């Protein structure tokens, strides 16, 4: 691992220690964020899974009854009945902030005539199967919109979780050990300097004592 190169001074040490504290705090916060995101994400995915299972089964049924309707009448009849819808669906989109991820929320609005009944063709030339399959499709609408919303949310959350996880790991396994190593290096260097200083002082003291002693012996001899 690449180490941070620093001057072994007390100032650098203080700076590094402050950075380490910040990194540790950031790491804890991000870890909490990741855990909470994960919790929300799993809730969304579980709901989405159930919804998708239901929608896929119902859609399969709708397609089947559609092909029956096409067989009973004629494909042309089917097209004629559907090609000119009386109503128009539109979506109202609001945005929700989910753990600082912006996710869309959809609300369906249908404008047009005959909204409640849902049929936009004359009943004379079409078969009953068509009515039934359209009714089922209509009831599926809300689930389909909700499914789109959930899947989008899941995708956006997955991206955010991935990002957060990378940050957490970078702090935990790269940044923080690097700071710790640098702090340790500086501390050792400073301690080593201290010890060097002490031994030097002791040595100087010894030399001075020796000099004094020699001086004293010399004066004693002269007397």
């Amino acid at each position, binding site marked *: 691992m690449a180490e941070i190169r620093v001057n072994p001074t007390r100032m650098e040490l203080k700076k590094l220690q402050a950075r380490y504290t910040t990194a540790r705090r950031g790491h804890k916060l991000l870890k909490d964020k990741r855990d909470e995101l994960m919790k929300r994400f799993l809730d969304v995915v579980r709901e989405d*899974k159930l919804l998708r299972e239901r929608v896929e089964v119902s859609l399969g049924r709708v397609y089947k009854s*559609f092909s029956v309707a096409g067989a009973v009448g004629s494909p042309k009849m089917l097209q004629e009945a559907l090609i000119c819808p009386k109503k128009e669906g539109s979506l109202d989109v609001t945005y929700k902030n989910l753990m600082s991820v912006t996710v869309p929320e*959809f609300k369906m609005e249908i404008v047009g005539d005959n909204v409640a009944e849902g049929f936009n063709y004359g009943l004379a030339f079409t078969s009953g199967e068509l009515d039934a399959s359209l009714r089922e499709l209509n009831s599926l609408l809300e689930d389909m919109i909700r499914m*789109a919303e959930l899947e989008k949310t*899941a995708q956006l959350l997955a991206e955010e979780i991935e990002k957060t996880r990378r940050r957490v790991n970078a702090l935990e396994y790269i940044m923080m050990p690097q700071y710790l190593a640098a702090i340790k290096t500086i501390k050792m260097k400073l301690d080593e300097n201290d010890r060097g200083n002490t031994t030097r002082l002791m040595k100087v003291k010894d030399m001075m004592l020796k000099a004094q002693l020699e001086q004293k012996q010399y004066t004693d001899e002269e007397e």
Partner: protein
Amino acid sequence: MYKIGIIGERDSVLGFMALGFSVHEAQNASEAENILHSLVKSGEYAVIYVVENYASELEDEIAKYKDLPLPAITVIPGVMGSSGYGMANIKTAVERAVGADIIFKDN
């Protein structure tokens, strides 16, 4: 106000006309791709449903729009029935987020 789009082959998407979706027929995957791009570019669509058999061929194109808040591109099974592609998408998202598949492991 946004529209809801649906892209797929004729038999799969015809019924959605009655729901007020804006229906786009595609004969093949490359046609579907062009439609998809133009729908996203127009910015009028909040949700675009893509029928499974095209979606699986347009995986890379759809992935481009994955991280945008809008539009939500959702895969639905077509008239041929579900091949489990939609579910596999959820599975991929889980693997991306968690690092391992913890939702679908039992099936």
